[in-house]
C-alpha cells in the first residue's frame, strides 16, 4: 500500500481511519473470483415461496472502493449508459438516482440487469463488457443515489455540471416497490 498508510500508525483511532482509506484505493487487477451471479443469485420480486433464501455471494468490494467506482463512472459513459439514463436523471431509460428500482437495486441486481437486459428496452450487454467492468458500472450506478460510501464516491465530473456529484448525493432509501431491495437481502 501507499506510504501515507505506513506512516500513520500512532493512534488507534487514526489507524482505523487509515485502514478505511487504504480500502478505498484497493485494487484487484483481475477481479475477485466470481461467484454465482446468474439468475440464481438475484430475485426480481418481493414475494417468496416459504422462507427467504439466503443472500447470494456478495461483491461489496466494488462499491466500497473509489477506484472501482471511478472506473465505473468512466465506463458508464463509454458504454453509452449515460445516453439512455442521463447523469442519473433518466431519459429513454428510467432514472438511476431516485428511490425506485424496477428490477432491483442491489449490486447483484444491477449487474444482472446489465448482462441480461430487461424486456422493456434495456439492452443486454452480455459478452460485450468484461465481467469486472460490469461490477464497476453497477457500483457506480449505486453511487448515483448515494448507496456507496461517501469516501469512495466520485467528487467531480468532467461533463456539464448537471447535478450534485455522487459524493454529495443524499442517500435514497429504496421503497417496497423496489424488488431485491434492502428488506429482501438485508443489505442495510
Amino acid at each position, binding site marked *: 500500500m501507499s506510504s501515507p498508510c505506513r506512516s500513520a500508525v500512532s493512534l488507534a483511532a487514526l489507524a482505523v481511519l487509515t485502514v478505511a482509506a487504504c480500502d478505498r484505493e484497493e485494487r484487484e487487477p483481475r477481479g475477485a473470483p466470481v461467484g454465482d451471479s446468474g439468475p440464481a443469485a438475484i430475485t426480481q420480486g418481493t414475494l417468496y415461496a416459504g422462507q427467504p433464501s439466503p443472500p447470494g455471494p456478495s461483491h461489496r468490494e466494488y462499491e466500497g472502493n473509489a477506484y472501482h467506482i471511478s472506473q465505473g463512472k468512466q465506463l458508464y459513459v*463509454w458504454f453509452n449508459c449515460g445516453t439512455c439514463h442521463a447523469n442519473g*436523471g433518466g431519459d429513454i431509460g428510467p432514472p438511476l438516482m431516485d428511490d425506485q428500482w424496477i428490477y432491483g437495486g442491489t449490486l447483484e441486481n444491477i449487474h444482472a440487469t446489465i448482462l441480461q437486459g430487461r424486456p422493456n428496452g434495456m439492452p443486454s450487454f452480455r459478452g460485450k463488457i468484461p465481467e469486472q467492468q460490469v461490477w464497476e458500472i453497477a457500483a457506480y450506478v449505486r453511487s448515483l443515489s448515494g448507496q456507496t460510501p461517501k469516501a469512495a464516491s466520485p467528487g467531480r465530473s468532467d461533463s456539464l455540471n448537471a447535478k450534485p456529484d455522487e459524493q454529495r448525493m443524499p442517500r435514497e432509501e429504496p421503497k417496497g416497490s423496489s424488488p431485491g431491495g434492502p428488506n429482501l437481502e438485508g443489505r442495510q
Partner: protein
Amino acid sequence: MYTVGASAALEHQGRRRRCFGLNIPDAEAGADVVISRLTGAMVLVACALGAAVPAPAQDASAGKAIPAAAASPADDGNWVMPGKDYASTRYSAQDEINTGNVRDLQVAFTFSTGVERGHEAPPLVVGGTMYIVTPYPNRLFALDLTKPGAPLKWSFDPKPAASAQGVACCDYVNRGPAFADGRLFINTLDGQTIAVAAETGRELWRTQLGDINKGETITMAPLVVKGKVLVGNSGGEFGVRGWLTALDAGTGTIAWKAYSTGPDADVLIGPDYKPFYDKEKGKDLGVTSWPPDAWTIGGGTVWGWISYDPELNLIYHGTANPGPWNPEQRPGDNKWTGGIFARNPDTGQARWFYQVVPHDLYDHDAINELLLLDLPVNGAMRKTVVRPERNGYLYVLDRATGEVLSADPYAAINSSTGVDLKTGELAMVEAKAPKLGKVVRDICPTAPGAKDWNPSAFSPRTGLIYIPHMNLCMDWQSSEANYIAGTPYVGAEVRMFAGPGGHRGELSAWDPVKRAKAWSVKEDFPLWSGALTTAGDLLFYGTMEGWFKALDARTGEELWRFKTGSGIIGQPIAYRGPDGHEYVAVLSGVGGWAGAVVVGNLDPRDATAAKGFATAVADLKTKTTKGGMLYVFALPQRR
C-alpha cells in the same frame, strides 16, 4: 386585414374591449395576448371602421395566401389523413361551431385508450367511424359514431416488440394512422407498417421495415399517395441511416426506397434532380460530405411530415438531424440530412433538395410540417411550400424549384443571423457553435428547436398560419460519442431553460404574405400539440397542463377552454358527424420529448435528464399526470 379582423372581434358577442391591441382584456388568467405588427394608427383606423365584417376572400387578388388547389379538395366532413389534406392545412370547412357559440362547447363523448405514454396522434374520421392509434403498443381502435356514445366497433393489437421501447429517443409516440381505399395504415414502434381493413379491423398485410437492433423505430404517420404508402424511419439519436420508402398499398411490397445518406443511387438522385442552389449539386455528396463511412450511421431519418402536390406530381419531405449530435465528429455538410426533398411519388426520384441546416450543430431535424400554399411574392403568385423550421425561421420555398423566397425569424434566435436568399446559406454565429471541451451557454433556440414536430394549421379565411411553438434556450457541452449499435449515438449534454421573457411556449399567427406575426399568445409551458383551424374562424390547440383552448382565429382572443385529464400533445381535428353536426376531437395524454419528465417519472435534479428537457419543465410533474383519453366536443343542442 388584421385591423378589420380585430375590429370585428371587438364587436363580437357584444364584449366591450378597448381598441388598442395591447390592452385587449383576456378572459383567461396567465395567457398574454399580444397584437404585434399593428401600429396604433392602424388600430385607430380599425376602431373608426367599427363593425366592418371581413369578407372571406378566397381569391389571390386580395393578397392572401391560399392552399394549393389540387392538394386541398372541398371538405367532405371527414378527416382521412393527419394533415387533413395533401397541402397539410389542418383546416376544416365546418363552421357550425364558431366564434359566436364556441363558449357553449361541451363534451359529447370520451374514450380511454388504456395507454399511458404520449398521445401525439390525431383521430381520423371516415364515414361514421373514428379511428385512433395509440403510442406503443400501437393499438388501433374504431369507434362507431352512428351510435350513442360512439361504442367500440373493433380494435386491433399489432403486438410490437417490447424491446423497441429502449430505442425510442423521445417517448413511445405515434403520430397517426392514414386511410385510403377502405384500408387503414399504421406504423409500429418496432418498425412495421401494417394495413387493416377499415370496416372489420382484419389485418391485410404487414411489412417489417426497421431493425431495432440498429436503433430503428417508426413513429411517423404514413401518407398514402397514388396507391403507395410512404413511410420513413426514426432513430437519428441512434446512428441509423435515414430512409423514406414507398409500399404498395394493396400488398405491402416495397416499390422504392430512398436513403438520406450514401451514394446517389441509394438516395434516388438521378437525371430528374435539378436543385436550385449550387451547394446542392455534385456527385455522391451523401458520401463525400462525410468523414469516411460516417454516412452509414449518419442519421437523416424521415420521421416527420410529408405533403403532396398532385399538380406538380411531387411529394415533399424533410430529413432529420445528422448523427451524432457532436458536430466535430462529422466535418462536412453531411448531405442529405437536415433538408427538404421534393420527389416523384411514382419512382422516388429526387427533383430538388434544399439543405436547411448544412452540418447541423444543434439537432435541428428538418422534418416539420410542409404547408403547400400559393401566395403573392413581390407581386407575383408563387406556388410555395411553407415551413416553420426548428431553427426558428419560417421558410417559404418555391415548391417547383426549391428556391428560398423568404426565411423570417418567428422565435428568439441567437445561434444564426439569417438566410442568404441568393445562395440559400444559413449564417451561423461562431460564438454559439459547440466545441469539444467547452460549455457553450445560452444558445437559442434549443435542440428541439423553436418548434418541433407538432404541426401548425392554415386558414384560407384569415390567410394566417397558426404555429404552436416554444421559447427555450440551452447550454450545450459536446462529448465524444461512441457508436454501439442499439444504443444512443449522441455526444452532447444539454440543459434547457425558458427563453427571453420567461414564458416557455407561444402560439403565433403568422402572415406569410406580410412576412410578419399578426398576433401571438404566450403560454407558460412549451406547446407540443398540433393546431386546428376551422371555418368558424376558430383556432384550437392544447397545452401540456391539459387545457384545450379555442381562440378567435383573427385576434387571438381566447373564447373557450376545457381541462382534460392529462397534458395535450395530440393533434385536434374537426369533422361532421353522421348526424350532420360539427364535432371537435383531440387526444389527451402527456408525453413526447417535452413530457418525458412526467411519463418516464424522470428526476429533474439531473439537468441533463431527457437530453436537457426535463429540467426546463420540471414543474410539469406538479401540473399533470399521464394517461390517454379521447375527448370529443360538440354544441349542446342535440343532446
